Each structure stands twice: as C-alpha cells, then as structure tokens.
C-alpha cells in the first residue's frame, strides 16, 4: 500500500518535471543552430554577427537579411551556390561542413568600393582532419618569392605573342620548358630570355620565340580553366581592374582615393610579363596589404586562383 503510494508520487513528480522541461529542451533543439545574420555595407559595420560557431556534421541554419542595399552570401572555398540577401526579405540557407577550420563568408553582390571588406568567419570545430589547403603553404612562400618588389619585364614583345605561331615550332622546344614547375616559377619575360639563348631554338625570330612563350602558357591551361577564370574575374575583379583588364574599373578612382593606388593594369606588358604565375597567385591569395587589392586566399580554392592566373595572361597572349 505505502509502496504503491510512493511510486505514484514519484511518477507524478517525474511527469511534472518532464512537462516543465519540455519547452526548454524543444527550444534549444529548435533554435540552437538557427543564426540570424544581418548584412550591411562595410562602411556601416558589415555582417552581424561577424563570427558564427558551427560543428562538423551538424547543419547550420542561417536566416539572412539586409539592412540597406542588395548583398549576397557565399562561403569561401565551398561549393554552396551564392544567394542574394535583400532588404525586407529573409533568405534561408542551410550549410554543413565536413572539415574543421575557419571559413570565411563574404558578400557576393557589389555594394560599393568597400564591398570586398564585407566578410565574416565561421569557426567550425570537429575531430576530422582539416583541408589540405588550410595546411599547405602557398607556392610563392615555398619558392621564397618576394611578391612586393617591382617586377618590370626585362623584355617585351613588339606584337601580341601568338600561341598558334609558337605551336608551329613546338617540335623544336626542349621538353623541360613544358614542365609545370618551370612554368609556375618563371615570368614570361624570363622564359623569353631563356629560349632566346637556347641553341635548340637559335634559328627562330623574336616573334617566333614570343610565340613559343605564349605556347608554353597555353600548354599549361585548359579551356575550362580559362572560362572559369573569366567568370571569376568578371564577378570579383572587373569592378576595380576593369572589364578589359585595363585597370580602369568603375571603382578605380575610389580605390586610389581610399588606398593611394590604382588597380593594376593587366594590359601593360612591362608589368604583367614580368610576373610569373606563382607571383600572381601570391598577390591574389595575400592581397596588396593596404593598397586596396583584396586578399582572396580565404575565398577561392587553389584551382580557382590558378584559373584566375591563367585568365590574367590572356590580356597579353592570344
């Protein structure tokens, strides 16, 4: 008799506790991973919050909205498509990470000369191995390149070098010139000086030799890579560097006023032909350190930066 009374008291207490606790548990399950993110132009504070926590394998729910103009949202080095973030509307996205690390999320719609400063971080914890790109140093560091010294080309062609012309003489070209390592670490001007004194190519004219240089560059690129490079350039670089690479994008004057430097002009042979792929990649990854040139390292995958580098050379070669 007494026992059963105690048992029922216990049951009632436990039942009550569960009922009281239920809303709390439910709420924490529901909202734990829903993060509301507000977008504002960089001048008015950028993203809020600027840092988001997440865990590998657990989906992160984001509710995005804008407090001023149209922005966009994407996460660097990920395949998630970019979404637009509009004032007065809410865009919901769900993202998941399978590797721990610090990810950068960024604005994808141009919202002024400081648009690229609109970035935030997502700190992802977990026990998996971090991605290889996060661990391996970039090539310019391995090659010990100083990417800040001026790199004027010591030789420039009289006319735009033509890879098709170079292809005619490609049979004469020693294989060592076509190795990726050689291409990555040399500027076109250096390669020109090398082929100029190569006995195997002694019979060729200057424009044939420049054609060979263009051919070497072409051999290290794929049409898909160029298309991707062109797309990335139009979206991320043309507002400063100009749609035709002339350094005269719609923000070039603003950037000069803000940072005291005009965006580089890729149609100038003396400048671009003096820079090798590793140097250009280094500049893209690290940025111009206060010159207005953004650092793209946290945004692009390695492959995307190489695609951009290949595309930049198309302003000099055909």
């Amino acid at each position: 008799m007494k026992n059963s009374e105690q048992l029922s008291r216990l049951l009632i207490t436990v039942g009550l506790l569960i009922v009281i606790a239920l809303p709390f548990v439910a709420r924490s399950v529901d909202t734990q991973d829903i993060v509301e993110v507000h977008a504002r132009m960089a001048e008015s504070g950028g993203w809020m919050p600027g840092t988001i926590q997440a865990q590998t394998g657990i989906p992160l729910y984001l509710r995005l909205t804008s407090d001023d103009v149209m922005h966009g949202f994407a996460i660097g080095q990920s395949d998630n498509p970019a979404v637009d973030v509009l004032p007065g509307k809410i865009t919901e996205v769900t993202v998941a990470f399978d590797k721990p690390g610090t990810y950068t999320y960024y604005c994808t719609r141009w919202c002024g000369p400081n648009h690229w400063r609109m970035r935030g971080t997502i700190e992802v914890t977990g026990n998996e191995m971090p991605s290889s790109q996060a661990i391996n140093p970039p090539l310019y560091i391995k090659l010990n390149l100083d990417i800040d010294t001026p790199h004027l080309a010591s030789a420039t062609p009289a006319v735009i070098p033509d890879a098709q012309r170079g292809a005619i003489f490609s049979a004469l070209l020693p294989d060592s010139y076509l190795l990726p390592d050689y291409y990555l670490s040399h500027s076109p001007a250096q390669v020109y000086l090398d082929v100029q004194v190569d006995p195997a190519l002694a019979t060729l004219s200057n424009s044939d030799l420049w054609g060979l240089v263009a051919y070497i560059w072409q051999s290290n690129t794929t049409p898909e890579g160029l298309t991707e490079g062109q797309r990335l350039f139009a979206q991320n670089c043309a507002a400063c560097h100009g749609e035709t690479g002339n350094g005269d994008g719609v923000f070039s004057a603003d950037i000069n006023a803000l940072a005291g430097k005009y965006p580089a002009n890729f149609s100038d042979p003396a400048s671009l032909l003096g820079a090798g792929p590793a140097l250009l990649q280094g500049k893209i990854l690290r940025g111009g350190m206060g010159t207005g040139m953004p650092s793209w390292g946290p945004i692009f995958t390695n492959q995307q930066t190489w695609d951009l580098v290949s595309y930049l050379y198309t302003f000099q070669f055909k």
Partner: protein
Amino acid sequence: MSKKQWFFAIFVVLAGMVIVFAPLPVHATAPTQRTFRVEASQYTYSPAILKVNPGDIISIELISTDVVHGLYVDEYGISVTADPGQTARLTFTADKPGSFRFRCNVTCGALHPFMIGKLQVGPNTWLWRASGLTVLAALAILILRPSPPKAQVT
C-alpha cells in the same frame, strides 16, 4: 459681338479641334539599331531620358558605379540588373510609341523609389499640339477682345 467676330469664334474652335486631334504627319524613319550607355548610381540614371523612334531596336548597356541597380521599363515589362564591374545589356524593339518611365527595380538605398528615367518612343506630339493651342489662344484674345467704344462725333 459682330457677325465677323462670331465667324472668327467658330473658326477658333474648329482650329483648336484640328490641333488637338489631327494625326501628325508620321515621317516614317526606317528603324535603326540604337545603343545607349546608361550609368546608374545612387539614385540617378545618366542619361535619364532616352529618345528613340518607333520600331527601333534598342540596346541599353547598364553600368552601375556604386551598388547593384536595375532598370525596369514600364508597359514594356522588361528589366536588367547590373552589378558594378559587369555591364548588363537589355535589348528590345521599341514597338509601343509613347512616353514611358523606367525605374530601378533593385532596392538600392533610402531614395531608391525615386530612381527613375524616361523612355520616349516617337515624337512628343503633345509638345507641338500644346504650343499650337497657345498661339491660337493668343490670337483669339487679341481679335475677340471687346472693341473700345467708338469716339463720339459732335
């Protein structure tokens, strides 16, 4: 009012109706391809007035110089969106004559609703008709005003 003045009054009314309703001689300009480079910035278009002839093939290159803007043409119901650095193109045939607003259709800041321009397809006939009516009215006032009392002869 004298008989003469009555005739004149009727004449004025008829002439006014002609000015308002007469179809203007349409000088049939052969449709051409026209390209406009329109710069969009908070909160204006430059140029903000585009004049074309009916039937022309219009190509608008929209260039944003600050934030993302759009261009939507009323009645035609067509639009483009331009990010800075990425020239956007809108090509269409101006097959509806008249005067149409175009407006920004991307929220681009506080004064976004006031970001508008005008597409003028064909001559602005109301300008001519209105000036015709003004001249006529001036004439009528001059001629129809009550004649001053005749000088008394003693």
